């Protein structure tokens, strides 16, 4: 049994670590805000700065780490993506090495040119229009319909997207095309250009100050919006089969994100414990603080091993549904308990606005809304254990 990370991946990990330390961490104040009342805090870096950083990553040959080579990415595989994500998660600066949702990996040649490549190069941003205000996360029962009329599709309905707003965008819209069929067989994904008649967008403005912490939803309204059949992504009625080869491993990469964030929390806790004094001694000498540090470190190590093993298996081509669910379940719980332990070490200062620590602790709570439905992950794991036993 060899737990050693391959040499080339170690090198990429080291490059990512250096980039985060030298380039991203010094920019944290832009995101967190420099003003006394933090009124200049921003959600994203200024566009020019992002372009500059993107250029650096492209020069390093790491732009599009998780994107397959045939689509213009690096095609690093799950373990490589996990190692990079783990490093990127150690800063509050939102920046990726060319991350693109695998839903778009199924673009055909023409769509690749018009949509995918501009997305990879950050010339266009996709608005993932999946969720409806009325239905929430129950996407199987979405109401938006697309009717086939004279070889085109007419879209009618309203969607909400949490994608990043931009001037140049297109929407990847999920709509029901065959109402009589099962939810997994009746959904089609359409790529809708921003200037398409009948397609309007509102919201998503970039805010500053405390509002920069909250992602602003974008509302997409489709009113008799005509979309040509060539803009169907993948096959008609098979929207939920898009990116099938890659989507499950994204759960493992998100697990790596938790590991990275927890590692930064631990680093901040160590600095705090070694510099904060109470009753004449550094708090690092107190058994309760040492216990909290030990708990965090142990949790991180366990989660890291779990993530790496699952990623290694994903790269080998093993089935990973159960492992990915275990990673999601365990890593989400780990990051919560890490933030909890960190609060014990920091006492109040962890929640002083403007500290990277505060942002990390807040984001771990926010993770519970994106990494929701842990019960479903337990369901996946249990079903795999009880393989063959059908319920219901």
């Amino acid at each position, binding site marked *: 049994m060899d737990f050693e990370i391959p040499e080339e991946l170690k090198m990429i990990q080291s490059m990512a670590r250096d980039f985060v330390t030298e380039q991203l961490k010094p920019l944290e104040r832009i995101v967190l805000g420099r003003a006394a009342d933090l009124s200049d805090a921003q959600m994203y870096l200024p566009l020019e700065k992002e372009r500059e950083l993107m250029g650096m990553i492209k020069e390093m040959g790491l732009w599009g780490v998780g994107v397959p080579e045939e689509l213009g990415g690096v095609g690093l595989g799950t373990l490589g993506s996990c190692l990079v994500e783990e490093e990127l998660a150690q800063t509050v600066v939102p920046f990726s090495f060319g991350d693109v949702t695998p839903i778009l990996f199924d673009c055909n040649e023409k769509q690749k040119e018009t949509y995918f490549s501009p997305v990879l190069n950050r010339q266009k941003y996709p608005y993932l229009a999946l969720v409806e205000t009325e239905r929430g996360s129950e*996407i199987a029962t979405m109401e938006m319909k697309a009717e086939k009329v004279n070889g085109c599709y007419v879209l009618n309905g309203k969607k909400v997207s949490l994608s990043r707003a931009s001037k140049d965008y297109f929407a990847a819209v999920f709509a029901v095309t065959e109402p009589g069929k099962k939810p997994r067989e009746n959904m089609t994904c359409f790529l809708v250009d921003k200037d398409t008649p009948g397609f309007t967008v509102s919201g998503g403005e970039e805010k500053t100050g405390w509002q920069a912490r909250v992602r602003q939803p974008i509302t997409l309204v489709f009113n008799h919006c005509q979309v040509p059949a060539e803009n169907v992504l993948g096959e008609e009625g098979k929207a939920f089969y898009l990116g099938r080869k890659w989507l499950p491993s994204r759960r493992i990469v998100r697990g790596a994100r938790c590991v990275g964030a927890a590692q930064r929390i631990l680093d901040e806790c160590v600095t705090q414990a070694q510099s904060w004094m109470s009753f004449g001694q550094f708090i690092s000498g107190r058994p309760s603080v040492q216990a909290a540090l030990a708990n965090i470190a142990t949790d991180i190590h366990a989660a890291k091993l779990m993530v790496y093993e699952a990623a290694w298996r994903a790269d080998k081509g093993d089935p990973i549904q159960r492992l990915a669910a275990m990673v999601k379940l365990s890593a989400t719980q780990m990051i919560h308990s890490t933030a909890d332990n960190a609060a014990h070490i920091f006492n109040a200062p962890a929640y002083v606005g403007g500290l990277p620590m505060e942002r990390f602790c807040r984001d771990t709570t926010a993770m519970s809304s994106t990494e929701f439905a842990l019960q479903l992950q337990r369901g996946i794991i249990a079903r795999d254990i009880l393989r063959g036993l059908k*319920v219901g």
Partner: protein
Amino acid sequence: MPLREQREVKEIEGVLNKILSTASPPVARCRLLSTGLNPGHALNITENIGGHKECIGCGNCIDICPFLFREPSRRNKTEQRTSMALESIVGADCDECDACVLACPQVDTTIKNYVVNHRMIEVMSRLEQRIGDEDEPDLDLFVEEALS
């Protein structure tokens, strides 16, 4: 905290099934079908509150609701932590998982046993539709993409 002599489920099975099959948090109606507060657990006050069926506002149902866990913005709409608040903010979006019934200290154990033995398996199969069979896509992967 219900009374020692609890509701016989056979007497209420019809209405209970109807309540549990309605897309709305069933905890309050299950509580009203229960026997109410056990006087042994009440404070020593002049009024005899034994048998009372009011919500005690413990907030267990709000904390356990998976829908509110997924959509915390709804939970933040009210400070109240009663079953009435749960019904107002969840409404017809209820997952029908019946977790609120199991978490409520005012619902009779007999009703909870019925829910576990006769209803949970049905809910699991409905929830499993979301994660799909081994050969079917997991819809939650798409929701995660949309939210993260």
